[in-house]
C-alpha cells in the first residue's frame, strides 16, 4: 500500500511539473502584457514599456523565467516561499493566501450542503423511482444544472435579497401568500412521503393546515422581525432529530439506541442552559469550537454508555444527534439576535461582498452579518451542484437496488430500512466518494463567476485578473494550489475507494 501511495505521489509530482511548465508557457503567450501601454500616449511611453518589460522579464528566455519561478516555489520546502509579484507589484504569496481563504469560506458550506442534500435527494428519488416526486426532482435537477450562474444570481438577488429586504421592513405575509405556501408544502410533502391515496390526502391536508396555522401565528407575533425559538424549541427539534436519526440508522425497535439519542438531546439542552451565560456574554470562535468538541465527546460517551450490544450504532446516532443539537443551539442564539441585528442592518441580505463594511455589532450580530452575506452565493452554488450529486446518487442507488444481494436481503426478510440503509446505500456510496473528493478539490479553485457576481475576490478572481493582464505569477499560484488540491484529492479518492470496496484492494 505504501509503495502504491509513494508511486502515485511520485507520478503526480511529475505530472504537476510538466503541467506547470506548459501552463507557464501558455500564460506568457496568452496575450500582450504591454497592450494598454501600446494604446497610451504618455510622453514617456517607451520608458513605461521598458519598465514593465523589466518587471515581467519579457526580454528574458521563457525557460529561464520558468526556472526562476520554479526555484521560488521550491523555496516553499525550505521556508522561503517566493511566488513572485503581480503586475501591480503586490506579493503573490500573500495574495494567494487571502484568495484561498476567501474561496474556502465561500464554497465550503455550499459543498457540504450540496453533498448532504444531493445524496439525500438521490436516495429518495431512487426509492421512489418514476413517482411524481422523482420526476419533479429530476426536472429541477436538470433545470438548475443548466442554469447560467450569472442569470440565476441576478434572479436570486432580485427576489431573495432586494424583494426580501423590502418585505422584512414590514415582516407580514399576506393571507394569499400563506395559503399558497401552505398548499405547496402540503403538495410536496405528500409527493415525497407517498403511500396510498388516503394517506397522501391526510399528509397533504395535515401539512397544509400546520403550515397555514404556523404562518398566521407568526404574523400575529411579528415573528419574522422578532423571532424566538427558545429552549423548548431546541429540545423538541433535537429530540425529533434524534428519533429520525435512530429510525434511519438503527431502527426504532432498537430501544437502547433510541434512548441514547433522546438522552443526548436532553443533555444537550441542559448544557445549553448551563453554558448560556458564557455564550451570550463572552462568545468567541474558540469557545464555540471548544464546546463543539465537548459535545462530540459527551455524545459519544452517552452512546457508549447506553449502547450495549449496539455500541457503535448508538455512538454514531448520539454523535449525529449531538451535532444537530449544537447547530440548533447556535441557531437559537442567532434567532434571538435577529431583531437587534435588523436594528443595525435594516436590509439584512446583501447582494455583494463577504461582509458589511465597517459593521459594528457584537459577536453574534457579526456572525449573522457573515451569514446573510454568504447566503445568496451559497444557495446558488448549492442549487447548481445538488443536481450533479443527486443524479449520480440516484443512478448509483438504482444500480445497487437491482443487485442480487439486495434481492437476497429482501428475500431473507430484512426490513426495508435495513435493506436500503445497510445493503444498498452503503454500496451505492462507493462511486459517490470519487465525485465528492473532486468536489473538494474544485472547492479551493474557487468559483469564477459566482465570485464575480457576488463581489468576492477569491481564487477565481486571482486567476482571471492574472490572465487578463498576461501576468504569469498569480495564474501560476492559482495553478499550483488547484493542481496540488486535485492531485491530493485524487489520491484520497483512490485510497478511500480501496478502503470502502474490498474488491479493488490488492
Amino acid at each position: 500500500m505504501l509503495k502504491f501511495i509513494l508511486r502515485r505521489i511520485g507520478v503526480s509530482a511529475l505530472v504537476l511539473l510538466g503541467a506547470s511548465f506548459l501552463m507557464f508557457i501558455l500564460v506568457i503567450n496568452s496575450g500582450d502584457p504591454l497592450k494598454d501601454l501600446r494604446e497610451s500616449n504618455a510622453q514617456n511611453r517607451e520608458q513605461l514599456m521598458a519598465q514593465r518589460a523589466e518587471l515581467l522579464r519579457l526580454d528574458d528566455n521563457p525557460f529561464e523565467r520558468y526556472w526562476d519561478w520554479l526555484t521560488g516555489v521550491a523555496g516553499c520546502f525550505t521556508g522561503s516561499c517566493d511566488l513572485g509579484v503581480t503586475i501591480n507589484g503586490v506579493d503573490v504569496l500573500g495574495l494567494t493566501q487571502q484568495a484561498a481563504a476567501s474561496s474556502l469560506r465561500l464554497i465550503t458550506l455550499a459543498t457540504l450542503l450540496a453533498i448532504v442534500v444531493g445524496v439525500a435527494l438521490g436516495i429518495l428519488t431512487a426509492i421512489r423511482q418514476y413517482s411524481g416526486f422523482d420526476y419533479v426532482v429530476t426536472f429541477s435537477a436538470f433545470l438548475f444544472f443548466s442554469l447560467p450562474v450569472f442569470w440565476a444570481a441576478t434572479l436570486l438577488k432580485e427576489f431573495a435579497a432586494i424583494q426580501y429586504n423590502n418585505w422584512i421592513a414590514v415582516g407580514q405575509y399576506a393571507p394569499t401568500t400563506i395559503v399558497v405556501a401552505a398548499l405547496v408544502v402540503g403538495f410536496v410533502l405528500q409527493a415525497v412521503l407517498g403511500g396510498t391515496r388516503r394517506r397522501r390526502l391526510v399528509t397533504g391536508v395535515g401539512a397544509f393546515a400546520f403550515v397555514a396555522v404556523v404562518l398566521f401565528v407568526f404574523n400575529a407575533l411579528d415573528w419574522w422581525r422578532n423571532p424566538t425559538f427558545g429552549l423548548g424549541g431546541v429540545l423538541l427539534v433535537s429530540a425529533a432529530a434524534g428519533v429520525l436519526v435512530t429510525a434511519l440508522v438503527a431502527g426504532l425497535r432498537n430501544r437502547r439506541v433510541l434512548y441514547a439519542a433522546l438522552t443526548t438531546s436532553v443533555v444537550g439542552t441542559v448544557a445549553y442552559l448551563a453554558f448560556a451565560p458564557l455564550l451570550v456574554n463572552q462568545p468567541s470562535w474558540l469557545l464555540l469550537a471548544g464546546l463543539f468538541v465537548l459535545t462530540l465527546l459527551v455524545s459519544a460517551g452517552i452512546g457508549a454508555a447506553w449502547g450495549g450490544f449496539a455500541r457503535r450504532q448508538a455512538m454514531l446516532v448520539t454523535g449525529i444527534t449531538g451535532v444537530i443539537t449544537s447547530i440548533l443551539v447556535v441557531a437559537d442564539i442567532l434567532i434571538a439576535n435577529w431583531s437587534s441585528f435588523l436594528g443595525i442592518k435594516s436590509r439584512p441580505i446583501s447582494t455583494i461582498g463577504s461582509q458589511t463594511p465597517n459593521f459594528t455589532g457584537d459577536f453574534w450580530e457579526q456572525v449573522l452579518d457573515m451569514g446573510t452575506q454568504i447566503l445568496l452565493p451559497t444557495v446558488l452554488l448549492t442549487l447548481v451542484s445538488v443536481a450533479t450529486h443527486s443524479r449520480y446518487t440516484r443512478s448509483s442507488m438504482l444500480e445497487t437496488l437491482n443487485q442480487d444481494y439486495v434481492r437476497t436481503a429482501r428475500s431473507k426478510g430484512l426490513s426495508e430500512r435495513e435493506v436500503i440503509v445497510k445493503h444498498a446505500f452503503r454500496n451505492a456510496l462507493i462511486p459517490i466518494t470519487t465525485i465528492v473528493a473532486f468536489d473538494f478539490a474544485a472547492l479551493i479553485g474557487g468559483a469564477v463567476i459566482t465570485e464575480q457576481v457576488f463581489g468576492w475576490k477569491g481564487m477565481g478572481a486571482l486567476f482571471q485578473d492574472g490572465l487578463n493582464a498576461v501576468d504569469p505569477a498569480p495564474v501560476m499560484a492559482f495553478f499550483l494550489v488547484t493542481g496540488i488540491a486535485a492531485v491530493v484529492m485524487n489520491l484520497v479518492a483512490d485510497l478511500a475507494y480501496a478502503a470502502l470496496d474490498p474488491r479493488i484492494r490488492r
Partner: protein
Amino acid sequence: MKIRRLSAAVAVAASGALLFSACTSPAGSDDPAEGDSTATSAAADGPCKADLGDVATADGEIKVSVEDEFLGYNSNTPETYSTYNSAVTDRLFSNFWYFGDDGSICTDESYGTYEAVSEDPLQVEYTLNDEAVWSDGTPVTYADYVLDWAAQAITEDGKVTEDGTETPLFNHISGLTLGDYVPEGPQADSPDAKTFTYDYETVYADWKIQISSPFPAHVVAEQAGVSTEELVAAIQDLDMGVLKKAAEFWNEGWLSQPGQVPDPALTPVTGPYNFKADGWQAGQYITLEANEQYWGTPAATKELTFRFVAADAQIQALANGDLDAINPNGPTVDTVQQLEQLGDAVTVESSPTLTWEHLDFNFGSGIFSDSLEAREAFALCVPRQKIVDDLIQPIDPEAVVMNAREVFPFQENYEDVVSQSYDGRYDEVDLDAAKEKFEAAGLEEGTKVRIGYAAPNPRRAAEVEAIKSSCDQVGFDVEDSAAEDFFDKDLPNGDYEVALFAWAGSGQIASGQNIYATDQPQNYGKYSDETVDEAWKTLAGTTDEAVHAEQVVVIEKQLWDTLFGIPLFAHPGVIASSSSVENVRPTAAQSGIVWNAEQWARAS
C-alpha cells in the same frame, strides 16, 4: 492624470453588461428618473465644484463602487497607476487644480494659488495656503514640491535629465518629463517656504496642469535618515547617498499588501479624507474617514467606502442599498433600462464623457492615402446620425454627432469652433454626391475598405455594419476587419484603410499634437499637413489662450478640409446614485463619479 488612453476596455465592459441583461422584472416604473438633477443644496454653477457654504461633517457612510482592488498610497508608480487607485488616492491629496465636469481646469484656492508671472520665458509662481498641513501637523511646503520634482527629474546616475529618455532614479509614472521641462526645479528662499517658482525651459501650453499633488518630503527625509532641509539640499546638490535611500522608500515604502492599512506615520494626507484604521478588507472594500486636520471645507460625510465590485453586480447592489453611488464602466442600453426600472429610489444621469469615437483614414497606404475624393466619398456615405441615433441615444438621449476633435459638444466653445471650421457637409448621408466623388477618385466598383478596430466590441461591430450597408451602395466593399491585436499589429503596420477607435481626452491643450502633427507617435495613419503642423507648433509654444482658441479653429478646419478622419460621437457615461444621497454629479473627466465625493451628503 496626464495619460490618455484608448478606451478598448469599453468592449470588455460592454460584453460584461450583456450578461445581466436578461433579468429584472419587466414591470418597472414608468416614469424614469433619468435627466433629473440631484437635489443640490447649492446648485452647481459652472463646471467646477459647487460652493456648499459652511459644511459640518455629518456622521454616516456613503458607499461607492470601484471595479478593482486598492493598491496603495503612492498612485504614481507604473504598477499602481490606475483610475481605480486614483479614485481613492485623489481623495487623500489636495492639489492646486482639478478637472471640472466638462474637462476644464478648476482651481482649489483653499490649497493655494498659482499664476504665470512671465509668459515667455514661462515662469509660474505657486503660493500655498499658510494653513495647508499634512495630517500629522507638518505644513505643506516647498520641500514637498522639490521632492516631487526630483522624482520626475533625476536619473539613475545622479544627474538631472537632459531629454527625459534616461533611466530614472524614481519609479514615477510620468518618467522624467517634469525635469525635461523645468531642469532647474522649483525655486524658493528656504525649504519651508510657502511660495516657489518653476522656470520652464520652453514655453509649455499645458503648464496649468503640469504640477500635481506632492508626497510628504518630511516622511521621505526621515526614512532616508536626514532632516527635511538636508533632503532638499541633497536634491539640489544631487547627493546620491541620500537620494538613493529616498528613492528606495519612494518606490517601495508606500506599496501595500491588500488589507493592510498603511501606517499613518508614513502616509500623512492633505485631502479631505484620510485612511481609516482597520478600514481595508482585501478584495472587499476600503473606507476613508474625514481628515480632522483638513483646513478647507470639510468632507460632508464622515466615512466614504469604496467597494470593489464588478460592473455586472453594481446595479442590483445599488437597488439593495449595498452601494449608494455607481459609475458602471462602458454602460449599455441595458444598464440604462435597468437603472430606470428602479424608479424614484435612484437618480440616474447620462452624460457624454471626454472619450470620443472616430474613423481615421490610413494616409500611409491604400486607396485613401492620396485621394481626397476617395476620402470624401467615404465620409459622405458614413451614416453618422444613424449611428448616434441607434447606438448612443438609447443610452444618452441628448447625444449628438460630434463635429470636432479638440473640443466636445458639451464644452462652451464647441459651437464657435465648429461654425468656423466645418460647414455641415457630412452631416447627412448623400449617396449621389458620394458616388460622384467615388467616380472622380477613379475607384472601381467593389473597392475593398477594411475598417479595423480592437475586437471584441459589439458596438463597433454595429457601427461597421451601419457603415457597410450605406457605403456598399456607393461602390465600396466595406470589410469588418476587427482583430484582438489591432493596436499591436494592424494599426502600427498600416494594415487597414479606416481605423475605428476612441481617444480619451485628457483636458490637455497640446496633446493633440501627438496625433495630428507629422511623424508624431500617435499619428498612426501617417497624416502630414504643413498647415496643421504649423498651427500645432504655434499652439503648443504659447500660453496665450486667445492664440490657443484661434489655432484650434485653424487645425479643425484643415483636418476637415483634408479629411484626416471622421469624428463620430463622445462616449456616453452613466452614473446612478441613491436618492438619499445629495450632490452626486457626473463628470466628463476621467476622475469619474467620485470627483466631488467630499461633497456627498445623506439627505436629512
